[in-house]
């Protein structure tokens, strides 16, 4: 099982009385981009939150490199390299760009390489370097998304989960972030992507899960999924 970094087995969870996930099983392979697409309310974000542990699993298992991490707390999972770039970015608005990045790099596992990681993030996003002393709140939407990704990378992720990479961004900016994602993939980082821009998500990813009402009715190599009629009709508007 060494070729699977993260595995979900029949995962169920939800909020209060409301069940959102009805048995999600998926496998994430190292160095690959795994994409989750699906309608609003299908359980994409809830899946990422349940993997991270900010939403507790009701049943099922989460395995990381073969080890059961289902019941671990979010900070313990983070310390093992599970990193979430949340929807809406959730930056520290009154901290500077660099301080936000340092918050990401503060964990025990990443602290020793703080300088190197910072240099790496600045190399990946020169824009953040230019704006390092600016408060996060003054950044444009695209720059904020760069910062959220940069903060995630500061944690030296084993698995980087990104919730809505391109939401609300202009086409050219969304495209640039997708190209950055490609660079990260080439650097060997394992990525789980939840994304509304199905076109770009399918293009950049290796394997795709299509969610519907808390289940996974369709999965496959992204290339195959992109050519399925039901996917083209429902998600690509073709």
């Amino acid at each position, binding site marked *: 099982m060494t070729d699977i970094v993260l595995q979900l087995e029949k995962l169920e969870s939800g909020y209060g009385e409301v069940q959102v996930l009805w048995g999600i099983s998926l496998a994430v392979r190292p160095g690959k981009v795994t994409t989750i697409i699906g309608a609003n309310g299908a359980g994409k974000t809830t899946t990422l939150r349940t993997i991270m542990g900010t939403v507790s699993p009701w049943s099922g298992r989460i395995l990381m490199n073969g080890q059961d991490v289902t019941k671990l707390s979010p900070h313990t999972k983070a310390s093992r390299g599970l990193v979430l770039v949340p929807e809406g970015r959730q930056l520290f608005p009154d901290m500077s760009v660099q301080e936000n990045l340092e918050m990401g790099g503060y964990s025990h596992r990443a602290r020793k390489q703080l300088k190197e990681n910072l240099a790496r993030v600045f190399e990946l996003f020169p824009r953040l370097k230019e704006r390092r002393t600016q408060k996060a709140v003054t950044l444009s939407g695209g720059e904020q998304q760069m910062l959220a990704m940069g903060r995630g990378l500061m944690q030296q992720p084993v698995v980087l989960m990104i919730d809505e990479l391109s939401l*609300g961004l202009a086409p050219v900016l969304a495209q640039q972030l997708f190209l950055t994602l490609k660079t990260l993939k080439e650097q060997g980082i394992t990525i789980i992507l939840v994304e509304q821009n199905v076109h770009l998500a399918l293009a950049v990813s290796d394997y795709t899960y299509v969610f519907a009402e808390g289940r996974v009715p369709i999965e496959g190599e992204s290339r195959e999924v992109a050519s399925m009629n039901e996917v083209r009709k429902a998600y690509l508007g073709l």
Partner: protein
Amino acid sequence: MTALLDVSRVTKRFGGLVAVSDVSFTLVEGEILGLIGPNGAGKTTLFNMVNGVYKLDKGKISFAGQDITNRPPNEVVHLGVARTHQIVKPLYGMTVLENVTVGACFGRDYLKLKPARKVAIEVLERVGLADRADTPARSLTIAGKKRLEVARALAAHPKLLLLDEVLAGLNPTEVELMIGMVRSIRDSGISVLMIEHLMQAIMSLSDRIVVLNLGSKLAEGRPAEVVQNSDVVEAYLGFPDIVDKLRGVQ
């Protein structure tokens, strides 16, 4: 064909940053005018200038023949300009119906509670939220909250509706529904100024498009003209071969 909205050489600075610089355009009554441009281009700032949230540093804005420059938002909505917000802002402690009722109470007609509620019910029918009237606003999905934004603005009985990214975050089916709704709003006699990133949608909806970049007007024209403008392609639309570029590594 007189201009309903006339934005004339407006400028807005935040400290050293010129967010909107010397921008002019007009919107003709009955028109859907699209406002596009990269993030940080000044689109939402321009909305905030039109509806009075921000004071102008320079320039003039007229609506229906009246100077509305620097009039406060409550007066602007009373004159007939309503808006939605990019980040949906329902009153979270209230139901869907109560939210829309508030829009009618503080809109163009300053309705009392009872007639306001009647208007709110009609508007909810119109946007397809009637069955959610008693739902707490917080428990709507994103698509529901976007519709609630539109409903609340419509309840203000506007002549001009400013829509700030009402399609962001919607899936293709929901996008289709919202596009139909915007068309029917215009057909009911309300003019529309809309910010949108979803190109197919804005191209099919707009009569004309204004493109902003770095605070300035980059281009203006019919959709077909604007997409062929090389400045617009470079600043905004990006690489036509992006999918091939992304696939390259596989």
